């Protein structure tokens, strides 16, 4: 069932989280920068609204939206971005790997497309265990030319794996336009494997939700994988380093046009102004607390740098005698 207020809350949370995170990048609190999810909020919100709490998700280097939409706690998320010991990954992952496994998020992967077979394997294992859990693998248009993604499509289709592949086509693989990188079409890649594929307006959270709900139901009922191509637009930089380097690969006019269809505004217009204001206020309070938590959290002890390298027991030799 569509929940307009719930979808708005998630798009707005992601929007404001990313804006606050960019402030923290500028303030030097988040080292190295982030890949902002700004403009793509409706995709994560719509897809994750179609999932159960025990469903599985693999995320990407531009993953904050997926992780928040799957229910992760913003303060611990922001603490991870700031490299603090209180983060989900205890400061070991940072922005590109921040993920809360207790929410069914099987990691955020910084190699484009690499999680496509991981999601398939997890979904297969869940089905083998007798559950009806579904896995979603998010990736961008830049991933559809990676061999490993096509290998994963083949495995998922062959074995009728309950996985939904969500391609966020934001128009650019870093600075390269989709049409300069993708021969044929994205959906035709899936169709070649007999995987049902559809293209949806990725700026409309309700449209994404409807398409995702259909794909998730298909997977849950044993009918195998689907591909959802969500047409969206990246409002901000590929990475915050662009704020300094300012590479010119799209015009201001194009960006303005892209931003004119704002997924947060589109969804916000569907709910009463009063409830919208209330949601906004609650999010500000939550994010104020998240920023305070991230700033005040301790840095990990350098003596623990090699912790978690192995599951248990094994400690690597030190790099110096």
């Amino acid at each position: 069932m569509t929940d307009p207020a719930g979808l708005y809350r998630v798009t707005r949370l992601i929007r404001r989280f990313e804006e606050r995170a960019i402030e923290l990048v500028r303030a030097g609190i988040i080292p190295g920068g982030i890949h902002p999810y700004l403009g793509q909020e409706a995709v994560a919100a719509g897809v994750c609204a179609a999932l159960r709490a025990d469903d599985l998700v693999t995320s990407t280097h531009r993953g904050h939206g997926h992780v928040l939409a799957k229910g992760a706690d913003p303060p611990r998320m922001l603490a991870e971005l700031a490299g603090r010991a209180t983060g989900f990954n205890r400061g070991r992952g940072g922005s590109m790997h921040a993920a809360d496994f207790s929410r069914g998020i099987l990691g955020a992967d910084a190699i484009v497309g690499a999680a496509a077979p991981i999601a398939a394997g997890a979904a297969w294992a869940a089905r083998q265990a007798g559950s009806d859990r579904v896995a979603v693998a998010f990736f961008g248009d830049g991933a559809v030319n990676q061999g490993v993604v096509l290998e994963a499509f083949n495995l998922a289709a062959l074995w009728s794996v309950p996985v939904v592949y969500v391609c966020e086509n934001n128009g650019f693989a870093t600075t390269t336009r989709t049409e300069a990188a993708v021969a044929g079409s994205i959906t035709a890649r899936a169709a070649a494997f007999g995987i049902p594929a559809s293209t949806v307006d990725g700026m409309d959270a309700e449209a994404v939700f409807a398409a995702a709900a259909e794909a998730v139901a298909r997977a849950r009922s044993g009918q195998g994988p689907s591909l959802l191509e969500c047409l969206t637009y990246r409002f901000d930089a590929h990475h915050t380093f662009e704020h300094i380097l300012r590479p010119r690969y799209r015009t201001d006019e194009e960006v303005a046009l892209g931003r004119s269809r704002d997924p947060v505004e589109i969804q916000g217009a569907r709910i009463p102004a009063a409830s919208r204001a209330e949601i906004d206020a609650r999010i500000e309070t939550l994010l104020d607390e998240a920023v305070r938590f991230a700033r005040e959290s301790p840095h990990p002890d350098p003596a623990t740098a090699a912790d978690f390298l192995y599951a248990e027991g094994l400690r690597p030799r030190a790099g110096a005698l």
Partner: protein
Amino acid sequence: MPKLSYLKALNRALGDELARDEAVFVLGEDVRAAATNVTAGLHRRFGPDRVLDTPISEQGFAGFATGAALAGRRPVVEFQIPALLFLAFEQIANQAHKFSLMTGGQARVPVTYLVPNSGSREGWAVQHADHPYSLFAHVGVKTAVPATPTDAYGLLAAAIRDDDPVVVFAPAGALGLREDVDFATLAPVPLGSARIHRRGADVTVVAIGHLVQDALATADELAAGDYGDGALPGPVSVEVFDPRTLYPFDWAALAASLERTGRLVVFDDSNRACGIGAEILATAAEGMRLIAPPRRVTRPDGAVLPFARGLDLAMQPNREQLRRAIRQVVGHAPLVQTRPAAQEAVL
């Protein structure tokens, strides 16, 4: 006592682990028909949900295994050809291996990668003849190279039960070995525990995988004072040290061996530069007892194994080279060495 072949030991370990733990499953190319013989009979015994034939799609099914492991399974991935590890390297070294640390310990990836026929096989050469165990040890992926049927059983079983990714190399040169074994004594061998196949007083030969048998044969010859070239400086007592796993490496056992012998030769089927032999020599030089400069016998730098048999063999470490290295090390006037005050804490 019944005979156990190396190949049958791998097969038996897989069967025992599949029977013991429902989380275990096997996947790879042609595992149903058992093209390598390692998985013979397993599909019939455990069915298609536990023994999965994959398409030729190494990166894909390596990643698939990681996902299944994250969801609670213990996959064993068979690679028929060692070079296939290069195709799956990203999924092993950059994904499976890094999940534990980069998630702050939220994730475990208990995948075993089994490589029967690693190293050279006559008539295969070039793209089927690599022995890339040093590559995985360098990256920090747990790496086992069993030398005997008993250890093949024990190390594969331990790898499957381990909560981290482990690569198990089964050298082609060892697959034909047979051993008298009391099956009731077969058991997992802890990763990181070396085995001394033969005690000796004069020199420690660290031999890896199939080269252990060559080292033992050479030790026999030298014990009889036979250098094979008429030069007869007298019998030499060789200790044959098999690390069994290259990562983790049993440095404490090596230090103890060198306390006894003070001389070291490494016999290693890796390329010379940055091979595990280089690491063993460096570690020994930094903190262990050495009374003569150590030697290593390896493949050449950056070796590519040519096809013609003579050329192929010319690239591989051999017994003649080992004998020569031992003679150089043993014949060297003892160095006056102050023992390190405190042995480096090595694990």
